């Protein structure tokens, strides 16, 4: 069964304390991986698409990387406004690429 697992479930950081969030998947023949940010009471906001192992993408304090089995979202010198739930998603093996499988997310809290 195709699965996406995110860890940790929750992470509390001090402002400026860098860390990484993990997204591991069991889908073979990965065709892409998406990262989203979700603020409380709002819909997910698209961050990145990664297409192949070794690829990296950056946006402000966020950098997403991809290997053959997992993806990391690195947060460098986070600020309180980076507090949110971060979701990753992948297309299923052999299925329609738009029928995404989502992880349950990592809830990030950055304290000033």
């Amino acid at each position, binding site marked *: 069964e195709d699965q*996406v697992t995110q860890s940790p479930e929750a992470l509390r950081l001090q402002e400026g304390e860098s860390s990484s969030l993990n997204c591991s998947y069991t889908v073979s023949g990965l065709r*892409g991986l998406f990262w989203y940010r979700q603020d409380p009471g709002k*819909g997910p906001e698209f961050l990145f*698409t990664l297409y192949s192992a070794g690829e990296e993408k950056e946006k402000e304090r966020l950098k997403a990387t991809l290997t053959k089995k997992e993806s990391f979202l690195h947060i460098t010198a986070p600020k309180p406004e980076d507090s949110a739930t971060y*979701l990753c998603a992948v297309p299923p093996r052999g299925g329609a690429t*738009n029928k995404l499988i*989502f992880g*349950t997310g990592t809830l990030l809290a950055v304290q000033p």
Partner: protein
Amino acid sequence: DAGITQSPRHKVTETGTPVTLRCHQTENHRYMYWYRQDPGHGLRLIHYSYGVKDTDKGEVSDGYSVSRSKTEDFLLTLESATSSQTSVYFCAISAGTSVGYEQYFGPGTRLTVT
């Protein structure tokens, strides 16, 4: 929210009553989706549409029906609401289906079935 509105934003209804949620987009995208989000399960696809009057089932379609009579509107109907359908419902849109076309989400509808 990428030109996506959902209505109502909040609704409380009783078990057994019909409920319709509406998603409206201004982007003229071909593909529209309905997801539900529950603690411990993440986002799960209910139904999606690939054009006017063209729809397909997702992972958790039982108990739900959808309709799309215009490009801009995608309706989700719970014919007879149950407590297990208490959830937050999100609509999403995309311009295509390949990985290069990311999905953009609406603000969500919080539905409580008592």
